[in-house]
């Protein structure tokens, strides 16, 4: 399958995530959309990794090409997990005080 398909697919997923972050009002859903963005990036990284691996295999050079992107994916997953733990803690902290996870509550600081 041409790499273009993967690029368009991942960019679509990423855009869905961006639109979700910008339009949704529920903190958890916003959060899920951010995760969607990160996973779109993960998928794209793996696709590029395979592309460079395939190119190297065609030219029969060192077969470790593209491996750094896959390592990058693991780092993204680990960091995303760390972010989730902090983010959920913050959301729980807000829920205890406001009994709501609606982002529209976030307007006290405006004035």
């Amino acid at each position, binding site marked *: 399958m041409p790499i273009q398909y993967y690029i368009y697919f991942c960019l679509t997923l990423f855009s869905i995530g961006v639109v979700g972050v910008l339009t949704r009002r529920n903190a958890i859903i916003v959060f899920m959309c951010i995760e969607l963005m990160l996973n779109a990036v993960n998928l794209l990284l793996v696709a590029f990794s395979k592309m460079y691996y395939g190119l190297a295999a065609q030219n029969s050079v060192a077969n470790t090409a593209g491996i750094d992107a896959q390592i990058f994916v693991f780092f993204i997953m680990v960091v995303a997990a760390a972010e989730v733990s902090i983010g959920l803690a*913050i959301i729980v902290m807000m829920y205890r005080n406001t009994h709501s996870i609606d982002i529209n509550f976030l307007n006290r600081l405006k004035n």
Partner: protein
Amino acid sequence: MNAIVVSTLLGVMMMFCSWGIQSQKAQKNIALFGLIILIMANLAQANGWYTFNYDTKGMLAFNVFGLYANTLMFALTFIYVWINGEEISKLSNAAADFYSLIFFILCGVSVLTSFDNLLMLFIGIEILSIPLYILTGADKKNMLSNEAALKYFLMGSFSTGILLLGITLIYGGSGSFHLAPPLIHISTGMVEEQLLVSAGLILIFAAMNFKVSAAPFHFWTPDVYDGAPTVFTSFMATIAKAAGFIAFVKVFNTQYLALGYSWTILLTFVIIATLLVGNIIAVFQRSVKRMLAYSSIAQAGFMLFALYGKSEISNESILLYAVVYSIATIGIFGVLVKMKENSFEAFNGLAKADPLLAFTTTIFLFSLAGIPLTGGFFAKYYMLSNLLKAGAGLWLILVAVVFAAISIYYYFKIIQAMYFTAGEPAIGPMPKNYQYQLLVLAIVLLVLGVLPNLLLNYLYF
């Protein structure tokens, strides 16, 4: 490497201090002692004494600039903890946790000053940001702090997503995460390399602007700075921001070549927008804390000038600017933290009630505005003279000077309230000791204003 390992170990150690040692004063002193160890470990590496000598496979590259930046950031943190230790203790019973988070942030700072790979850029930014989200929400019962933490967290992870997409597109175009200049070296025939790399660089540029709160992406800054506990606002606006700028300069001082001429247009647009938004909106603020948040956006606009031109020129000006701006900001937030309210009226008649404090505050404000004889003047001067050397147009320098003049207006509103408006200052109990600490900061600024070479002599790499 020393700094990264030692700061992590110290962070873990401070975590255990929170239940091992009850005395808040002892915790502060342990943190200060840890910072001294950290500075010494870093200086040891700068002098060629590698304690932890691993092969990082090109992930990290330690150069003089990075190590010197580390030393300065650690020294600034030392000053910060020395001044704000008591205030940090007031926020929670377990203040050692906050110190441990500060050490983890310093670990992120030392990754950001020495990365040589986009993976390490991402890791460094995350190590820097995640503890900051916690520090922002440190005041758990306070609704404003909660709100600021959630906002900062959502915006921060959103910008991380954009950063990651940028890195991925660069990888797609170049087949490598390394920062070395000829970016495009494989012709795959499958993707449009130039397009992917340019798009990726622009996305990274946007995400980094987010992190340093430059103009089209600044909107989280005032809310987060306003809502966070004042002591941690001070940390966010100084050390964390300066580290962000060092990373920014490190990424783009070689990579901008891939963007060609459009880089200059992009950068000029962002700088002018940042200066405009920061300075103009700061004029209309009624709360000093919010005014300082907008002024920090405006100062970010000045620091962005370091991205013009070659790295050798910009490195020294960004470090001088970051240090001077950080000292002045730590000082002014140190005054603000003792105020009962954040309005300008709170400063009324401070010069009568407490002349020494009014004097030190004035020095901090002079430095932020860039009045001669304070460090801020030379920081701005070096920034603009380097801009001229880098071949920017004279009109850009004129724009910068005009905006610096506007900034004098809102900084002087505090001075006017202190010296020329009668009234009772709304200031809390202020130990003499604390005033002398602030005075030391003011003296450092004055010394840097007369003899900037004390700092700059080390900066010719």
